[in-house]
């Protein structure tokens, strides 16, 4: 099947605005979805679930959230780890306080709680801009993690200071807790990510998305033509934090099962998600996925090669990995500052004309 737009005419504004305007692209997307929803669950095992697919989905969710704030609205945040912690702890408190509440709603509500916290920490963005704001979001990061460490109410006074996810089911099948089958946790995460990615796409192509991008590209002009900075920025913080909160809830309840705040939600998490967004492509939904995939899969691959293949000690491999990730980020920024999504766009432009160069 060739990648062609010739003959693919649009006769209404509605069809002109669809996500995949080109037919072959549409087929490719739905084909991938069919495989993800209907084929993968039959082959998934514990290793693929816990080391590859669920991490990939959780990080994609977080990257989507940060991309809305940073990529679309232009507000750099280094507080992602802290907001994921809010999602995780909200999820834990809701799970334990309302054992009968369906886990699906628990996760959504956790996102809502995080959205509220995100709005609070987004308020300074009305006064301060750029790097000042980036540093200010670090305040959220440190304060939130400290809070979950120090206030016993958040971890239900458990002796270890950890939080552990109890078993919860959907349609009678466990999706959290130790006995949840891999295919169920995978499908649960996939459904949520699919749903929210679709909504992110809709939000970013509509009025709200345009007001975000206007603020990003030129905030003063945006205000003069009628964008309310308060509404645009705070809604970006809210929506972004919602996504990050949902990611945090899944991270804790479905993927890890038990977390300790300093380890799981440290500043490195903030940087990791930021890297995903940068490498994937700022202001691109697809980019969020590509970035998350790259930074989830690369360490798995490296570990297999260096420890499994070459037999290096794990600490050496870990150092090498840090160095390589750093180097790759610099490399990517030099080669393509707009990320993998831009590369994909370029490939498509070439494909459209292939086999003729012009």
């Amino acid at each position, binding site marked *: 099947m060739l990648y062609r737009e010739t003959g693919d005419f649009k006769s209404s*504004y*509605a069809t002109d605005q669809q996500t995949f305007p080109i037919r072959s692209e549409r087929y490719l997307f739905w084909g991938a979805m069919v495989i993800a929803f209907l084929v993968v669950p039959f082959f998934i095992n514990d290793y693929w679930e816990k080391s590859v697919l669920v991490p990939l989905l959780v990080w994609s969710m977080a990257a989507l959230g940060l991309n809305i704030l940073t990529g679309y609205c232009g507000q750099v945040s280094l507080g992602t780890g802290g907001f994921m912690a809010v999602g995780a702890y909200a999820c834990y408190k809701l799970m334990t306080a309302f054992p009968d509440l369906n886990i699906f709603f628990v996760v959504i509500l956790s996102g809502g709680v995080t959205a509220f916290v995100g709005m609070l920490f987004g308020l300074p963005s009305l006064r301060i801009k750029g790097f000042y704001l980036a540093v200010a979001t670090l305040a959220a990061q440190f304060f939130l993690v400290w809070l979950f460490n120090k206030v016993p109410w958040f971890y239900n006074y458990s002796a270890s200071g950890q939080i552990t996810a109890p078993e919860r089911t959907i349609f009678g099948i466990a999706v959290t807790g130790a006995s949840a089958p891999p295919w169920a946790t995978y499908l649960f995460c996939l459904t949520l990510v699919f749903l929210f990615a679709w*909504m992110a796409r*809709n939000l970013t192509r509509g*009025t709200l998305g345009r007001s975000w991008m206007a603020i*990003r590209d030129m905030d003063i*002009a945006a205000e003069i*033509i009628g964008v309310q900075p308060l509404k645009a920025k705070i809604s970006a913080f809210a929506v972004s934090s919602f996504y990050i909160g949902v990611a945090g809830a899944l991270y804790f309840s479905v993927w890890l099962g038990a977390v300790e705040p300093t380890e799981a939600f440290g500043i490195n998490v903030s940087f990791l998600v930021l890297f995903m967004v940068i490498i994937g492509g700022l202001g691109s939904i697809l980019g969020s996925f590509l970035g998350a995939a790259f930074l989830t899969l690369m360490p798995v691959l490296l570990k297999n090669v260096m420890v499994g293949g070459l037999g290096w000690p794990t600490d050496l491999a870990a150092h090498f990995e840090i160095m390589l990730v750093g180097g790759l980020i610099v490399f990517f920024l030099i080669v393509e500052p707009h990320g993998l999504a831009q590369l994909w766009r370029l490939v498509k432009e070439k494909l459209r004309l292939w086999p003729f160069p012009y």
Partner: protein
Amino acid sequence: MNQHIDPGTLRADDGIERGGMLLHVDNISLSFGGVKAITDVSFDVKKGEIRAIIGPNGAGKTSMLNVINGFYHPQEGTITFRGEKRRRMRPHRAASQGIARTFQNIALFKGMTTLDNIMTGRMTLMKSSMLSQAMWWGPAHREEIAHRETVEKIIDFLEIEHIRKTPVGRLPYGLQKRVELGRALAADPALLLLDEPMAGMNLEEKEDMSRFVLDVNQQFGTTIALIEHDMGVVMDLSDRVVVLDYGRKIGDGTPDEVRNNQAVIDAYLGVSHE
């Protein structure tokens, strides 16, 4: 040439007769720190006219526009727009009251396409809820399509169909100016402020732009206040001209009156200020 307009095309119905007062600027003074940018300037803009603001560099013209649309807050004086008096106001409020503008140094949203840029102009008119937008279904979708139709008319009018889906950052200067005009028009403005719409253009581009300005004024009946340095353009286009120098008003009237005003001639030829 402005006399033969079909009043039926007038929009933004606010009960103000054509030729009635749309905007009143009263005794505006503005300073930054100790530097006075505008001193005690008053003038008015009548509905349906093209009003030019001219003056040498640093005369306070752009500051004046910034005051009108609420971006700068004057220390003294008031603005009366459509009968509503105010001194301080947020720019987006001014925008939703019907003041749209273009900028001296193009202020487009570079990462967005031409279409999206012009759609942002309709921001103040779009009302659908966030949830509805997230679903891309129902009211939000209908609204999007309806506004898209208006925007397509503007795209037609400005003859920029071919760059509809191009990110504006990639466009040449002249086209960017046109897209910016489109974005301002999309707001359906009662008052359109143009800050040097023809700066940096060649003769042909200036002619195009003059035609668009006149068409906007005549076809849509939009009131326009513009800043321009090209005297030929100003004298041809405008109904009335206000002249600023060193932040003060030194002349006001029809192009002919202004041309023969001694203070204006001095300001332009550079008579020393005692």
